């Protein structure tokens, strides 16, 4: 696109590589690799969580949706914040107290059964891949646009970046890359907000009346993007419970020393990311007013370039030095965001494969520390290569729907199993398999026969099947538990589980 973008982008990449070199020297044990030595502070983990959750799909996507479809975009933006209430109240502290590196740890500790662990690993891998492919494809498209590279070369560059961060620097590098990115993004957001508000004399209500006058009253109503009313409900349900089941968000709580710090880091992310998402709504409304929907659609039909275009306008417009610097900065941060988020996903996936599957399931824990780290690094590289290949194959396919699918599976399969493991005395291995199985099958099955894949020939009307898949996942968990039946020893052990879940003291 231009020299400024390339320069800013190169500076960000150089900084993150320096962090990786620094982190690599400090990454020796499995705890270093998966959990950054459990040494992050609440603020650091809060910023890293904000980085994880503010993916490009979120900060470019929500702005675009609001600019093109009005209120539905604002609905997408509020979801993650409300979802962090679920994380804060019922997941973060028990998870930190109970597990070591992964969600699988919690399931294994509670059930002590290999099949239960295997089911948890399957859920994690499917969710992470479904989440990763759209990010890779988006990163490729964005780099192609910015640097004029070929799509496949762009995806390979994104993949290379994430493999280097994760394989060399583990969680420490991944966390600090996220922190740097979050700081850049929040600073950019603050500057943009001030510039936007400056234009209208600090009265954002102007955007509501101006957009309504220009695009008609329906612009400020729901249903422009999500046509089916049940899709609105599915979106709400999927968000509010699905976020609490996303593996790469969950593993963040293992990077802090204790449950209290985990709790404080959630409060941090709720204010950081929450405020940022509230801003995306204002940015969207402002872009519809200043840039206009026609210009936004002309740049990208999905509206993904809305925020860069708004930044360009605020900087002084196309061709002006200020405009090009602003555009370059936002675009470079967007690419850095994508690489950082896929790095987090790669790490969580390698945890599920190397730690849960290889060390705990196959080797029963009898692996030397050095070999555990080696296995983790090798797995990260393999996962990175697979994700890169899938990203290349995804060119031209509508992959955005995979994000919805990932969140739907997280809400329908992971969340019920995790919550019931922590809180239901009678919950057992049958329940884990039943919940994971039915949650996964119904999410994937309904998504495949829905409008996202079959278009007009869809056998099932909803894009997002959470409203049906979630009850099915819970049903599977309960039925599985009842079918396997009661086991006195297992239920007696729940006292010990509860002790650890709520105090963090380990035997």
């Amino acid at each position, binding site marked *: 696109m231009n020299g400024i973008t390339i320069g800013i982008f190169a500076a960000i990449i150089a900084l993150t590589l320096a962090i990786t070199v620094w982190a690599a020297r400090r990454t020796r044990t499995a705890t270093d690799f998966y959990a950054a030595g459990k040494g992050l502070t609440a603020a650091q983990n809060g910023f890293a969580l904000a980085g994880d959750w503010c993916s490009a799909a979120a900060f470019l996507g929500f702005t675009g949706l609001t600019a093109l479809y009005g*209120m539905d975009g*604002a*609905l997408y933006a*509020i979801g993650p*914040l*409300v979802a*962090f*209430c*679920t994380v*804060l*109240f*019922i997941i973060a*502290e028990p998870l930190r107290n109970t597990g070591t590196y992964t969600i699988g*740890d919690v399931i*294994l*500790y509670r059930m*002590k059964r290999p099949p239960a662990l295997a089911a948890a690993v399957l859920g994690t891998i499917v969710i992470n891949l479904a989440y990763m492919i759209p990010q890779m494809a988006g990163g490729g498209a964005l780099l192609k646009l910015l640097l004029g590279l070929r799509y496949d070369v762009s995806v390979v560059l994104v993949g290379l970046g994430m493999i280097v961060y994760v394989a060399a620097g583990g969680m420490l590098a991944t966390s600090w890359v996220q922190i740097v990115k979050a700081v850049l993004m929040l600073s950019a957001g603050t500057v943009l907000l001030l510039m936007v508000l400056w234009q209208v004399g600090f009265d954002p*209500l102007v955007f*509501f*009346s101006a957009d309504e006058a220009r695009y008609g009253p329906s612009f*400020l*109503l*729901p*249903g422009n993007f*999500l046509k*089916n*009313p*049940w*899709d*609105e*409900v599915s979106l*709400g*349900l999927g968000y*509010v419970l699905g976020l609490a089941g996303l593996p790469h968000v969950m593993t963040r709580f293992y990077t802090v020393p204790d449950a*209290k710090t985990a*709790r*404080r880091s*959630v*409060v941090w992310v*709720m*204010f950081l990311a*929450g405020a940022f998402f*509230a801003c995306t*709504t204002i940015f969207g409304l402002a872009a519809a007013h200043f840039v206009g929907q026609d210009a936004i659609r002309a740049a990208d039909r999905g509206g993904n370039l809305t925020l860069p275009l708004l930044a360009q306008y605020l900087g002084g417009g196309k061709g002006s030095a200020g405009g090009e610097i602003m555009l370059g900065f936002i675009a470079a941060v967007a690419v850095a965001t994508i690489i950082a988020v896929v790095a987090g996903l790669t790490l969580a996936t390698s945890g599920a494969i190397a730690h849960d599957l290889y*060390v*705990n399931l196959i080797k*029963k*824990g*009898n692996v030397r520390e050095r070999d555990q780290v080696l296995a983790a690094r090798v797995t990260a590289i393999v996962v990175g290569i697979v994700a890169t290949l899938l990203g290349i194959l995804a060119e031209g396919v509508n992959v955005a729907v995979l994000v919805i699918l990932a969140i739907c599976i997280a809400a329908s399969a992971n969340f019920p199993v995790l919550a019931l493991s922590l809180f239901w005395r009678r919950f057992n291995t049958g329940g884990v398999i039943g919940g994971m199985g039915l949650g996964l099958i119904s999410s994937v099955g309904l998504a495949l026969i829905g409008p996202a894949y079959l278009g007009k020939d869809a056998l099932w009307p909803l894009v997002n099947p959470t409203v049906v898949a979630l009850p099915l996942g819970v049903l599977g968990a309960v039925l599985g538990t009842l079918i396997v039946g009661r086991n006195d020893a297992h239920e*007696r*052990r729940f*006292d*010990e589980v*509860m*002790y650890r879940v*709520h*105090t*963090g*003291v380990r*035997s």
Partner: protein
Amino acid sequence: MTVANLKTEIDWTASALGSTDVAGLVATKLRCIAPMIAVYLTAYLGLSILCGFAKPVLGTKVLGPVNLGFALIALNYLVAWVLAVIYARVANRVHDPLVQTIIAKAEHEGGQS
């Protein structure tokens, strides 16, 4: 945590762990969390359902050009932030001291036996 070392773990009895204290802690936590969960789920899922099935209602103007839908979205931001702060305060002042008491008691009894 691994399958192997779990098998050799001591089978702690409920009384030694002070399980009644843990039950008390869980009850205390639930008294704080349950109403808060009810509040945010009602606020957020209520908004989602209204968006799906009561579009005209959400179009009612409540503050100049801002309609009820956007006002409810703003309310959800407020609800989430306020609940987070309340929860953090209660957890710091009530839950954490309870946890410390339980741990101290377990260590004391462990030392005696």
